[in-house]
């Protein structure tokens, strides 16, 4: 029987401290009983001789110094795992909130999963087609990749994520049935969570979805735990049960803010913009859980969504994320204002794994060439546009006029597409070549003559 300690030494933010405690372990879980008999949970985050500091998941309001009982449970925070997870809804600490009771646990696992040995990793190479031209052609998603969506407040990131979930499929494999979704909400509003729930239900995906929900009004410690629970579940489903798991995490910005709040209540020295100096390592401990393992059939693909504060891509949250993830899909406010959906900014978007998962033997031979040339040509458009604002469109050279035309067509016919319109890869690539054919052939310097002979349909030069 474990000892119950009565009374606290200090309460500060979401932290409580106890004196004269012996034999507890770092990261150990504790149960806290309040005066009214209600229970909360906490975790050891600092040991200083006989003084122990705990973070309280549910927050400290209502806790008093004297009549609070603390019992250490002798184990770290774990989450129950089994295939019954599918179709269920949990809170940020992994407790069911859908009224269906506890799940039968095959096993329980520490939510701070150990790191995958780089030697055991398998390099991701199977392309996931999303049916969205701007992503498939120039920013392909690969199974086992971590590819975040960088968005801004009010942009259509939720719709895009939902569309990707609806349409995503892997070419050339027959294991569609093994595809499941882990959805992790961190600090989002109830209607956003509802939107996803409804959309999963409509597309019939709800039965193969696990949801971990931490709403905007829920405690911040749970917000920090939620993605860890979700990823532990994802790893279990992927590497023990052989599922292909797509993890949608939204919104990483709120997660990072929770981290900052927590850090400042611990009295840590803040780094850039007040975020803790270990935010990089902390984010990495989440994102790096994506991947494939040699000899295991499943995969964890990660799609975190974050809203860039003030649309600033150099803000610490998108910045550190971009350094860890394998590329990013950046949404553009300019495109959104032009009425383009999905407003994917092609130039700043990038998929680092694309080069090894597209082209010969993977998708279509001309895929990398097309993508390369689209980038190069589209990057010329902005020059022509800014020149047009200075001297007027009429005064532009023939070449610049063509670029202007190419840019507009690309945005409105290629990037723009319906929310319920899946495009096949052939449709996307052929459309890409048709648009490039607006430009004179001599402008397409990224592609060899052989490829141009096969795909270029323009007439000029």
């Amino acid at each position, binding site marked *: 029987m474990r000892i119950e300690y009565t009374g606290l030494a200090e309460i500060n933010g979401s932290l409580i401290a106890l004196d004269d405690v012996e034999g507890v372990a770092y990261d150990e879980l504790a149960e806290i009983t309040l005066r009214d008999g209600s229970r909360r949970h906490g975790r050891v985050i600092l040991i200083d001789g006989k003084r122990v500091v705990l973070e309280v998941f549910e927050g400290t309001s209502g806790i008093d110094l004297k009549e609070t009982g603390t019992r250490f449970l002798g184990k770290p925070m774990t989450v129950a795992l089994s295939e019954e997870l599918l179709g269920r809804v949990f809170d940020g600490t992994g407790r069911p909130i859908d009224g269906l009771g506890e799940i039968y646990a095959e096993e329980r696992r520490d939510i701070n999963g150990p790191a995958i040995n*780089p030697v*055991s990793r398998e390099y991701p190479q199977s392309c996931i087609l999303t049916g969205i031209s701007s992503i498939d052609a120039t920013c392909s998603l690969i199974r086992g990749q971590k590819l975040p969506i960088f968005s801004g407040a009010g942009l259509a990131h939720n719709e895009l994520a939902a569309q990707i979930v609806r349409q995503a499929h892997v070419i050339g494999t027959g294991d569609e049935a093994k595809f499941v979704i882990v959805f992790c909400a961190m600090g989002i509003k109830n209607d956003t969570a509802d939107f996803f729930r409804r959309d999963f239900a409509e597309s019939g995906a709800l039965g193969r979805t696990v949801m971990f929900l931490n709403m905007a009004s829920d405690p911040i410690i749970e917000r920090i735990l939620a993605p860890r629970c979700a990823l532990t579940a994802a790893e279990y489903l992927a590497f023990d049960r052989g599922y292909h798991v797509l993890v949608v995490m939204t919104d990483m910005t709120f997660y990072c803010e929770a981290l900052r709040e927590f850090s400042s209540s611990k009295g840590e020295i803040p*780094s850039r913009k007040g975020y803790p100096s270990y935010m990089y390592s902390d984010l990495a401990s989440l994102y790096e859980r994506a991947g494939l393992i040699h000899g295991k059939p499943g995969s964890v693909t990660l799609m975190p969504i974050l809203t860039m504060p003030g649309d600033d891509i*150099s803000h610490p949250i998108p910045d550190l994320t971009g350094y860890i993830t394998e590329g990013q899909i950046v949404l553009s406010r300019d495109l959104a204002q032009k009425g383009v959906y999905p407003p994917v900014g092609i130039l700043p978007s990038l998929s680092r794994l694309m080069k090894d998962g597209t082209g010969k033997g993977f998708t279509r031979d001309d895929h990398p060439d097309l993508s390369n040339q689209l980038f190069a040509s589209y990057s010329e458009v902005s020059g022509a546009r800014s020149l047009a604002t200075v001297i007027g469109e009429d005064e532009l050279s023939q070449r610049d006029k063509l670029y202007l035309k190419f840019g507009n067509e690309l945005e409105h016919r290629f990037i723009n597409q319906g929310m319920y319109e899946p495009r096949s890869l052939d449709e996307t690539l052929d459309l890409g070549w048709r648009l490039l054919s607006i430009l004179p052939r*001599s402008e397409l*310097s990224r592609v060899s003559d052989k490829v141009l002979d096969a795909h270029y349909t323009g007439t000029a030069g």
Partner: protein
Amino acid sequence: METNNTPYYIYGINGPVIRVRGGRSLPRMSLVYVGEQRLFGEVVSSAGDESVVQIYEDSGGLSSGEPVFPTMEPMSIRLGPGLVGGIFDGIGRPLSQIERLAGDFISKGINIGALDEEKKWSVRMLVHDGDTVHGGQPFAVTEESGMVEHRSMVPPTLSGTIRDAVGDGNYTVVEPLAYVESERGERTPLTLSQLWPVRTPRPFSRRLPIDRPLVTGQRVIDTLFPVGKGGSAAIPGPFGAGKTVVQHQLAKWSDADMIVYLGCGERGNEMTQVLDEFRELRDPRSGRPLMERTILIANTSNMPVAAREASIYTGMTIAEYYRDMGYHVALMADSTSRWAEALREISGRLEEMPAEESFPAYLPSRLAGFYERAGYVDTLSDMEGSVTVIGAVSPQGGDFSEPVTQNTQRFVRCFWALDRSLAYARHFPSINWNTSYSEYYNDLLPWYRKNFGEDFPELRERIIGLLNEETSLNEIVKLIGSDVLPDDQKLIIETARVIREGFLQQNAFHEHDTYMVPANQMAMLRLILHLYDGARQLVGTGIPLRQLVETGIFADLERMKFGLGEGTDPAEFEKQVDDALEQVRRANA
């Protein structure tokens, strides 16, 4: 050595920082094993009866009161045959061995050395009984891989007479092969391996001037911003600018004898990719798999942060060890910013006074200590060897004024600034030609004249001149469009475009463009300028530039790199240029 009885115990725990009490304070930077699980750690500071230890593994599950086992020795790595082709974690443990012991996920408390102590190596002895030897002298050789002959050396501090030397044969890394008897009669065994404390630079006899470049096969680096063998270079760039691809390209194609690739706080998949690719890819000179000259150190971003701090010293010590055998070693560190952040994180937990951007005040001296371990040296046994350091820097928000970039810039002489806007336009490598520099160029000039060609300096200057003129012309074009420029200025813009798109840009993923031999680089420079000169003459006689552009010769030269890579003779392209010029000239005659 560690014992089971120890007075030391855990007093406090804060993340990877453990406070230890129980006896007189422990020597700074000495190694300890913490807790019942014997987690590996290093003493970072001591005061009174308390020592502060940083541990290299996750501290979850440790309790106060658990025992701590001091070793009183600094953190060391066992150097010897078996390193080449391997992948190690930040403190030198072999990851493939860990996989065998622990499975796909890295578990805690696995204390194994870098080398396989059971494997027998075929050894050829270089010394015999009665020989006198000195520190650093090779005494035995082993074929470590198809590309590296391992020269086992007498430890630097040892000298004397050889006794009881074994004959050639098969031995493990821990069997004594001979004894060194000092003047006072002390006998020390020599084995294929030796321990070396990672934070101590290995000694050499003297530094030599840097006079030859690391030839990389990357056009923009070899011609515009070369780094000398034994020099140091930094690659700063925002995310997505292609730092890692540049590092990979250098690791693949540069003409170093050995590569130590250090993945410091970066992505796990990148290390997997290096492992996979380097087993497949062949070295262009020897035709052997690249992995046979490569050693990987991996501390991916989700591996313990304290080990990240140690990883660059582990990598550097290995690089110096092979340098001492007379090899030219290139150390790629990707990324030093993660290392600096690890330093900051630990410093914060130690509650040290923060300096700029909450990095510790000793950041510059630590950076200097690292980069100064690069060099071209005469080894203790009078062989020439070098360590070239190429460090990637990941500045926060792509802002080069942040402390890590700024301080790095003070200690490197070559700076390849990657540019986000070039990367957005998929101009790779995105090395910005206006903000990058190499201070080695003048030192390397005699080498370039001899190996690239006497006319190289002149060609390079003209290329840079054209790029600069284009930059200033672009200011005008932005305002009024290119149509109104006179033809000679249009020609500069057209030529600069060929230089940028054709020459500076290099497709790392293109079979024939990923690497270019110096001769072809020179051919490209000559041809581009040959076209420019010919065109300027035409334009000078009043022939419109448009006519020449319409022949498609500019676009042809842009794509010439693919042809040269496939083995087309440069003379063919020269003929194309001459034909185009002639065709236009005749049409206007």
